[in-house]
């Protein structure tokens, strides 16, 4: 492979847009003072350990799924977004995608 190809197509920092979103959300909440980074690491490493007991994690999609699960549980415990509230909002977004004609911006009213 030529060096040009490597320069023009670097390894993506985030493989999927939602990986970037959940990462940024967590960093932002930390910087806004909702939790310390040490608190986050303690919870996140516990989730990884639990997931890693049943199968070997490859550090890709499974890593960010564990990240998301940690954040959902953390926010529910903080009383910021309960599991039911999050699930209801997820369903609203899903319905919005399924009911929005292709090519138009997907929005929900709130």
């Amino acid at each position: 492979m030529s060096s040009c190809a490597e320069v023009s197509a670097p390894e993506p920092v985030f493989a999927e847009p939602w990986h970037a979103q959940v990462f940024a959300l967590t960093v932002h909440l930390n910087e806004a003072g909702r939790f310390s980074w040490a608190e986050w690491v303690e919870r996140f490493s516990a989730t990884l350990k639990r997931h890693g007991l049943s199968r070997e994690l490859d550090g890709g999609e499974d890593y960010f799924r564990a990240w998301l699960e940690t954040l959902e549980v953390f926010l529910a415990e903080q009383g910021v977004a309960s599991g039911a509230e999050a699930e209801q909002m997820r369903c609203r977004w899903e319905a919005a995608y399924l009911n929005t004609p292709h090519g138009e911006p997907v929005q929900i009213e709130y």
Partner: protein
Amino acid sequence: MIDGIMKHDWTEPAAAAQHEAMPHDDPNHPHALLPPDPALRVKALETILTQKGLIDPAALDEIIDTYQNRIGPQNGARVVAKAWSDPEFKAALLADADPVLADLGYYGRQGEHMVVVENTPAQHNMVVCTLCSCYPWPLLGIPPGWYKSDAYRARAVREPRKVLADFGVSLPEDTAVRVWDSTAEVRYLVLPMQPEGTEGLSEEDLAALVTRDSMIGTGLAKAPGEAPA
């Protein structure tokens, strides 16, 4: 009913790649493409937190832009090249990295301390995070997938020489290997050995020899003229 024809399997990266390649006016997709389940869950959290005034969506965009476009291993490479070129800078960096890095505009947004460990003929350093994936973000950006994998996190401590061999690195037998375990509070950067025959090169040319892996300790700096890692 969403499990019927309209729902795509987004769990595989290949599916996302197909999405990229799909023409926008594809008549088989009368509605907007449904993102994968975790993406909807992230959107849900974002919406709830925005509604409650706990987050600023513009700040999220700024964070993503920073980590996607503005910081990466090129930052660490600049620091290493400067350390190779300037003995006083190097001494200060090894003694107490935080103020030296802050002067260059690199500081931990999560309040962590940075420690720089120097490779020598007697000791090779390697960095891991056995807890999760703590990493010197301001200097190296987001860690690669292998750094976050169970395999690397477990093996780096247990059998560092075998891990190095997997990365194509073999060290003299009398070089000790020291593994540094990162935490939420302390992140490490390896200062690789300067390749022979590069004295007198400009900092910019030197920085081009410093790979991401050489600053994690799973690689060595490149020799001039060596193909890109």
